[in-house]
């Protein structure tokens, strides 16, 4: 006679959680896995590429300027004889650093403000939503151009003065000015969508019975926000962050393309595309290489974002 299972271990189906279920759904989605694969390869290139590249991104070979792709130079060389492959890999690092830092700052600001607006409501909500509306109503590009154009020169001059006064080598690297201004201005235009998303989530979660139950346990507002509200709002946020990373990379390229992003000689896909565009009829590889990688990265994040959306909100899809 068959024994009747009695312990939970025997009775249960394999242990599942919301996250594990979502992971299984994600793995079954081929496009999402392709996107994840692309992102992992690019992230690897960003992290370790600079140690593996055959050439330094600054070293010039003036005898081999504008060379077509070959085994020695996989993506050819540019007008100064610099290896384009190495520069694209360095550009990957720039793109990832900018995308991750900008998204991290934007998400932190967005989640904090959105959660407070949604949870407390009232005048706080009105002020925060007014702030997001104002920020979103200013054209993104214009704001970034204004910030960079008006602050970059004075800040660089100040750094120069500090260097002359203190001889501290830190102040000699004006690249920090670039990065701080790029991070700051891009984060400034990127946070409002996160704030709106989180606010909407929190508004719906705030009135759920388990929040009242948590309050009836005497937990503090901070604990309720951090452990009950935000974790339940995080699904749509993950989707949004994945898409946001791709968007941030495109933004960084766009600003570099326009000359308000990361400045040469630091390689950035955007300024490589900008340089390549001027000579593309003669040397198409100078445009094709960075543009293709930028396209690939965008597609990768977009596929992963879609896959995550389907995995985390199974009811909404199909």
């Amino acid at each position, binding site marked *: 006679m068959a024994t009747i299972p*009695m*312990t*939970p*271990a025997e009775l*249960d189906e394999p*242990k*599942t*959680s*919301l996250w594990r279920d979502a992971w299984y759904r994600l793995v079954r989605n081929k496009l999402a896995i392709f996107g994840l694969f692309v992102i992992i390869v690019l992230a690897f290139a960003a992290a370790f590429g600079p140690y593996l590249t055959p050439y330094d991104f600054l070293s010039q070979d003036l005898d081999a300027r504008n060379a077509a792709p070959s085994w020695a130079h996989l993506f050819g060389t540019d007008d100064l004889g610099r290896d384009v492959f190495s520069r694209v890999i360095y550009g990957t690092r720039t793109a990832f650093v900018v995308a991750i830092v900008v998204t991290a700052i934007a998400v932190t600001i967005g989640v904090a403000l959105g959660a407070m607006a949604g949870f407390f*409501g009232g005048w706080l909500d009105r002020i925060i939503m007014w702030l997001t509306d104002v920020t979103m109503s200013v054209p993104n590009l214009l704001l970034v151009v204004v910030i960079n154009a008006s602050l970059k020169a004075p800040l660089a001059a100040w750094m120069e003065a500090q260097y002359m006064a203190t001889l501290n080598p830190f102040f000699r690297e004006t690249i920090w000015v670039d990065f701080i201004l790029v991070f700051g201005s891009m984060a400034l235009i990127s946070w409002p969508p996160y704030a709106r998303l989180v606010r909407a989530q929190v508004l719906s979660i705030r*009135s*759920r*019975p*388990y929040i*009242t*139950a*948590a*309050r*009836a*346990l*005497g*937990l*503090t507002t901070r*604990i309720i926000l951090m*452990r*009950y509200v935000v*974790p*339940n709002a995080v699904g749509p946020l993950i989707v949004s962050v994945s898409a946001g990373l791709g968007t941030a990379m495109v933004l960084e390229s766009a600003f570099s393309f326009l000359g308000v992003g990361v400045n040469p000689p630091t390689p950035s896909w955007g300024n490589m595309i900008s340089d390549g565009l001027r000579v593309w009829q003669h040397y198409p590889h100078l445009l094709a290489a960075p543009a293709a990688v930028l396209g690939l990265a965008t597609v990768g994040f977009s596929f992963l974002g879609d896959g995550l959306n389907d995995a985390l909100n199974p009811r909404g899809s199909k």
Partner: protein
Amino acid sequence: MNAMTMSAPERLLDVKGLSIEIDTRRGPATIVDGINLHVNKGETLGIVGESGCGKSLTMLSLMRLLPNKIKVKSGTANFAGRDLLTMSKSELRKVRGGQVGFVFQDPMTSLNPVMRIGDQICEPLIYHKAMKRADARIRATELLRLVGIPSPAERLDAFPHELSGGMRQRVMIAIGLACDPELLIADEPTTALDVTIQAQIVDLVKELRVKLGMSVVWITHDLALIAGLVDRVAVLYAGTVVEDAPVEELFANPSHPYTRGLLASIPKLSDVAANRLSSIGGTPPEPGRRPLGCPFAPRCQLAEDICRQSVPPLEPLGGSGPHRVACFVAQRQLEAA
């Protein structure tokens, strides 16, 4: 066991003149009108009434958990010597979950879906009792065993969606009991459950309150369900207590016409021949349109002129004793008899 046999029982919770208002477009409307309630130490009080009579709001208001548009207008709620309605927020947080446990109506939505149940039981222990995580988990295992969950240690790591409704309600009760509260407030804890599970939960609470020596307030619309559980019943109608009596006395001698109506509408097997369920005609008054006199007068078959003109006070039936009723007719009938 019965509170009435003791001399001058100590009151754990004493609510006096509690009124609650809701903000509507037409201005504030009274939902709960000067309620007086008390719970003695070790006593189980049943609060009975139909939907919308203010049972849940009264209890939520004591823990200051009312939704935004609903506010307490007046009254005091003395709990163990302090007024719940005016104490500071930090004091209140210590009472919530620490001295007063709450069990909510819908176990499906009252547990945090992304948190393991073990963590949810540990939460009040870590917060109120300053327990270490490992100790809290041991206590959580004990609590799950106490509320009758099989293989409690394995269940600690389960998520709410992996448990059935009855199991989830047991978990809710375990959370409510975590810090050895002096008072457990159960707000229709069985409404969302099957009849057999309802009986199990009632039996569980009955057993636990003796074992733990706590007071219980059980809110329900189902008089029959709690007949064997509670010591005393307060019948609510339109935000006022219309009758308050020891449970045997209430069933033996229901005095308010509304209570009689409630008891009559419990279906009995012997009624099959009648083929119709008895009910009370009409609907309770809307919050903004309370009648001048007794709130039940418009639906009451015994109503007289005085009922429509002034509100009957809640007074002991026949002048003294624990059975109190707010009805002119019932009081007079007894005098005449």
